[in-house]
């Protein structure tokens, strides 16, 4: 059983920052957790009922209250500011695409459309893969995320990427893998009876291997 509070390894350019913020928050909340719970138990023990002793008659102290209003406020706002930066890099500022693909969710499969040799989507030489996303490493893969029926959520745990696919809406998602290998594609949004089977594979190649794979696919799938 894995009781660890560490995150599993991640392999995208942004995942480091995301995990970083996670660990910062883990430290802050962890310390707060031990202090507050510690105090709680200490008080319960220290001030337990004794015959004849009367509790202090004390309505509060504005100073202390201002203190523990401001300190948390400052901390959480700081977290907020730090988070904004990373959030923008992940969701707002999309880098120039090394590979553009369309990922379309459908009960219960992910269809991926690749631009084909001419490098442009929506042309006759596009080709598709089912439940598999093939990508080169060290290149920004810019995905146009769609859904044909209900909400799905495109989840790449190892890339720290998650985005709901909404029917009738084109949503841009991007990631850049830093290491070749096989990774997971999951659906994180309940999408019906087969939700549990809506998994897939993300396969990251070196640039060269990807070229080879891509051209072989393009030939196979030409009529």
């Amino acid at each position: 059983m894995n009781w660890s509070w560490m995150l599993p390894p991640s392999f995208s350019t942004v995942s480091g920052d995301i995990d970083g913020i996670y660990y910062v928050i883990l430290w802050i909340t962890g310390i707060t957790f031990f202090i507050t719970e510690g105090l709680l138990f200490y008080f319960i023990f220290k001030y337990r009922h004794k015959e004849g002793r009367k509790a202090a008659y004390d309505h509060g102290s504005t100073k202390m209250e201002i203190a523990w209003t401001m300190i948390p406020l400052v901390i959480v706002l700081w977290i907020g500011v730090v988070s904004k930066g990373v959030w923008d890099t992940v969701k707002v500022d999309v880098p120039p695409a090394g590979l553009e693909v369309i990922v379309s969710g459908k009960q219960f499969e992910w269809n991926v459309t690749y631009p084909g040799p001419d490098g442009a989507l929506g042309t006759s030489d596009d080709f598709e893969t089912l439940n598999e996303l093939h990508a080169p490493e060290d290149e920004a893969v810019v995905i146009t995320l769609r859904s044909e029926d209900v909400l799905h959520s495109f989840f790449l745990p190892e890339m720290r990427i998650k985005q709901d696919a909404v029917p009738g809406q084109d949503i841009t998602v991007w990631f850049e893998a830093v290491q070749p290998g096989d990774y997971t594609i999951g659906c994180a949004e309940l999408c019906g009876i087969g939700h549990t089977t809506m998994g897939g594979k993300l396969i990251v190649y070196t640039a060269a291997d990807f070229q080879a794979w891509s051209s072989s696919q393009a030939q196979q799938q030409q009529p």
Partner: protein
Amino acid sequence: MIEKYGELRNTALLLSILVIAGCGGGGDAGGGGAGGASDAAPAESPVDVATAGNIAGMVTFSGAAPMMAEINMGSEESCAARYSTPPMEDSFVSDGNGGLANVFVYVKEGLESLSFPTPTTAVVLDQDGCMYSPHVLGVQVGQDITLRNSDGLLHNINASPTENRPFNVSQPVNMETNRSFGAAEVMIPLRCDVHGWMTSYVGVVDHPYFAVSGADGSVSLDGLPPGEYVIEAWHEQLGTTSTNVTVATGETAQISFEFTEAMVGSPVPMGEPIDLLHPDGHRVVDH
């Protein structure tokens, strides 16, 4: 404001009644629908075998057959492993010399005055190797269809009829579920959402005179009472074509259906009611 809540109490009442109705409905296994043959309720009239005749026919296709791609079962290894050569899409199957398979052929008109008992035997629709077998099947109104899962992995059967009540059930293990349709309807599409390539079509009619063309395109409808009939042939890619035929006592009438390349992609009627009470109650699927 208060008076509005008085009104709400009634709403609540109505809804609880609705529920009780719902529970009642919950009992039967999915049939129901528009009642089918039973509304026309003529006395049950067994066909006199002595005078009965037969129909024998061929369904053929001429021209360039539509391309059928390979099915990529990569997402379901255990199924893919079942095939030495990758399975082909089965929305168009014909033998080399023109015979067209998977065509649903049935008597469309000419039997209105008769009614027939519901068969007690169930028709099996098997999910084997992540394919439906048979791909096209016919049943009588109210006759059970045994949905069988022989793959032992999660399938769901999503039926979207127009006349009948739709259903969408799953089968996570080797198991059987019985369903039936209460109204005549040609055709009802079934699909498995877990395996996008799995589709099947069910023709529901209120008499026993229907058949699905075999690999060589041959069909036969046996034991018909003598008379004039309109016979229709339905194909999921090519649409429908029909012909008139006269069946004489003890004889076998020959018919043939000719589908052509030109018909590829023509509108395919779905959920068409057989009883002439509502003739144009069908939706059309364009390819």
